[in-house]
């Protein structure tokens, strides 16, 4: 048995890879569910019902998908240029914190204020990733390490702020930041649900990112810089500027996710407001094959697992942590699937 590189990868295979990866992840997780004493088919049926079985369930799933689309885009944009931004979680929290802080005492009318707060969240995320990117460009510091470790620093910093200067005095001692002003809460998309216009923001972002990556000079240059940096430099593409530009966009998208989540769902910031949106964004991006349209689909899948697992947990007693297991497994199976799209197995 040996691996042979494929000359051309058929489009059908590219599309089938994430589906196969998800199926394999679900099959593997089925073993764990069975070990918990529950029929996996029953559990998965509960999961589907919990995420898609009613109007409320669907809106809840879409609400959860909104930040995932944005963090997924953040990872996809960066990974395409081989900038390994593992710091989506930190950028999400800083975007959220700055949005709550400024949004608490801003004196602008609603729509303008919302736009400004989004820009603030984006700028915060961008700045947070610009540092590691600059360190890599200047000193060759591995951004996987710096961005990953920054996540922990950011979470502790957020904890510090919401226990201290930004503490909400009306939260009865609950560690939560001051909330954004009611004028800056994102309008509901569907009345009496939690689904907010942030979903439209995320979808628009996906469209814009697709446009940038596939149609602009900058997009072609970022792809060249990711695929073959030496050839890109030879062709006159300024690598440092390109990578920094990608870092700013990626950080901004993750920061925007935090900003939108605060304005759309939580109001204030807590250290548990994200069930790992930043990290799950990496899985979303990989399942999507780093393609913006794929990101939307993959985010819907991951959100289905997250939301459905809660319902499954209530109905069957399987701990809802199984959601994290499924998402993590699907990253691993996707990596294997990618291997098989690039290579074929030959029996010799």
């Amino acid at each position, binding site marked *: 048995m040996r691996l042979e590189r494929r*000359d*051309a990868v058929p489009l059908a295979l590219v599309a089938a890879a994430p589906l196969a990866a998800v199926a394999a992840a679900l099959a593997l997780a089925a073993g764990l569910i069975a070990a918990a004493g529950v029929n996996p088919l029953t559990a998965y049926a509960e999961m589907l019902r919990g995420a898609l079985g009613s109007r409320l369930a669907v809106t809840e799933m879409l609400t959860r998908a909104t930040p995932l689309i944005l963090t997924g885009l953040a990872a996809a944009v960066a990974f395409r240029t081989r900038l390994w931004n593992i710091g989506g979680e930190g950028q999400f929290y800083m975007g959220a914190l700055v949005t709550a802080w400024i949004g608490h005492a801003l004196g602008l009318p609603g729509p303008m204020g919302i736009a400004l707060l989004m820009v603030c969240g984006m700028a915060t995320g961008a700045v947070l990733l610009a540092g590691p990117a600059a360190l890599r460009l200047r000193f060759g510091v591995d951004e996987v390490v710096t961005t990953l470790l920054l996540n922990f620093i950011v979470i502790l910093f957020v904890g510090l702020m919401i226990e201290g200067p930004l503490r909400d005095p009306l939260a009865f001692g609950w560690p939560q930041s001051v909330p954004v002003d009611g004028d800056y809460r994102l309008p509901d998309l569907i009345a009496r649900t939690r689904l907010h216009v942030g979903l439209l923001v995320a979808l628009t972002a996906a469209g814009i990112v697709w446009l940038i990556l596939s*149609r*602009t*000079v*900058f*997009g*072609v*240059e970022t*792809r*060249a810089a990711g*695929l*073959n940096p*030496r*050839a*890109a*430099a*030879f*062709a*006159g*593409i300024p690598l440092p500027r390109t990578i920094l530009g990608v870092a700013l966009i990626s950080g901004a998208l993750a920061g925007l996710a935090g900003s939108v989540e605060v304005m759309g769902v939580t109001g204030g910031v807590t250290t548990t407001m994200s069930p790992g949106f930043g990290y799950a964004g990496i899985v979303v991006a990989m399942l999507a094959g780093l393609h913006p349209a794929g990101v939307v689909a993959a985010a819907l899948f991951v959100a289905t697992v997250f939301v459905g697992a809660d319902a499954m947990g209530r109905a069957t007693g399987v701990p809802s942590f199984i959601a994290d297991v499924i998402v993590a497994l699907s990253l691993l199976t996707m990596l294997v699937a990618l291997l098989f799209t690039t290579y074929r197995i030959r029996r*010799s």
Partner: protein
Amino acid sequence: MTRVLELDGITKRFGRLTANDGVSLHLMQGEILALLGENGAGKTTLMNILFGHYAADAGTVRVFGQPLPPARPRAAIAAGVGMVHQHFTLAGNLSVLDNVMLGTEPLTRLASRRASARARLLDIANRFGLPVDPEARVATLSVGERQRVEILKALYRDARILILDEPTAVLARPEADRLFATLRGMTAGGLSIIFISHKLHEVMAASDRVVVLRGGRMVAERATSATSPAELAELMVGRRVDRPLRADHRIGAPLLVADAVSVTQGGTTRLDAASFTVHAGEILGIVGVSGNGQGALGALLSGLTPPSAGRLTLDGQDIGQAGPRGLIRAGAARVPEDRHAEGAVGDMAVWENAVLERLRTPAFSSRGLVRRAAARAHAADLIARFDVRGATPDTRIRLLSGGNMQKLILGRCLATRPRFILANQPTRGLDEGAIAAVHAELLAARAEGAAILLISEELEEALALSDRIQAIVRGRLSRAIPAAQADARRLGLMMAGAWGDADAA
């Protein structure tokens, strides 16, 4: 004389492609056999079958009379077959001894027997005239020395049949000559050798017998003493291929002028006060042994590295700090030394590669958006004009053969009708047909008045194309001599640095 190796009726298909079609050949004890063929003729596939990397669809391999089980490299090694790949398989951060010993010791052994291994390695090195420092880190060795380690690796495993895949592809001429002298000595010590090549002169110089492959079939077998380069070339290509000849014509005014230019990379002076002038309609050849500053010269003229001292001008305009895009704007075109590493982004489409250098010009973008239709049309035009086979604008460029990729890169350069062309090793690794095509394009550009700087390690190429030639040795350039006064011997001396201080420019 006994037959040490017999291949009988070897056939191998990859999908629709038949890489080997009923090939039979044998190797005699103490013989050097050359396996000659163009790129894609099936030479490497055949040797990979012999070594057990691939399993043949039909046919048998016999080593010292014993049939070899298919697709078992370990069986091949045990039978005494050693292979030296074109791309070395060495671990750069390990020592020579570590690399040689790797995989020869049982995993269950607790302590490595380095002392005895070292003695054995030195003994082999002595016996076959392959001097080596066992403790040197491989990363610090030159390419020629690394190849020596690869050969030692095979000999350490008791190889009695040695297969070398394009052994001179990465070597400069003197190193190659030394290699063949060593191989000759090794056959006297009882080894039998097959080397794969597409270079006629080395086949003529180094082999006892030649087997020619074309399109996966064996088309001829000749005793080297009974054939000629012309016959072999025709057998290899299947038709007569003549490299184009340089016609005399009027040389124009100085266009690219380097005045005492130095280049420092990582604190080391790679190019030391080099001066040269390329005139319009002239090809200036820079010859030298690999690693003597050609890389820095290429980087300088590609706009990747600015000069640390001296002045570089194109038609009077200082271009030292111009960068790649500035150079292209100023009318320069660059053919990079390594088309895979620098010339093309393998996983991007042909059309994207065709316009990558000029993406930000109005021809191919407006308001930051790529003009995809214009870019595709341009790529289609290049494919047609420069006879790039097997390509459409949307083909990923990785799928093109080396020659066709090079034609596209050359086309990308020439399409702008540049005033100056840097051609850095433009035919490295190409087969005869592609070399002739590249030479013809460069000569056509010369006839239209372009100034061309040719960096080459192939003396035949430099002599055939250049109007004047300079040698590069440890970052210093010799004075230019007219091609008419140059021959292989004089150039060889110049490349060794023997041009005398009075001659140095």
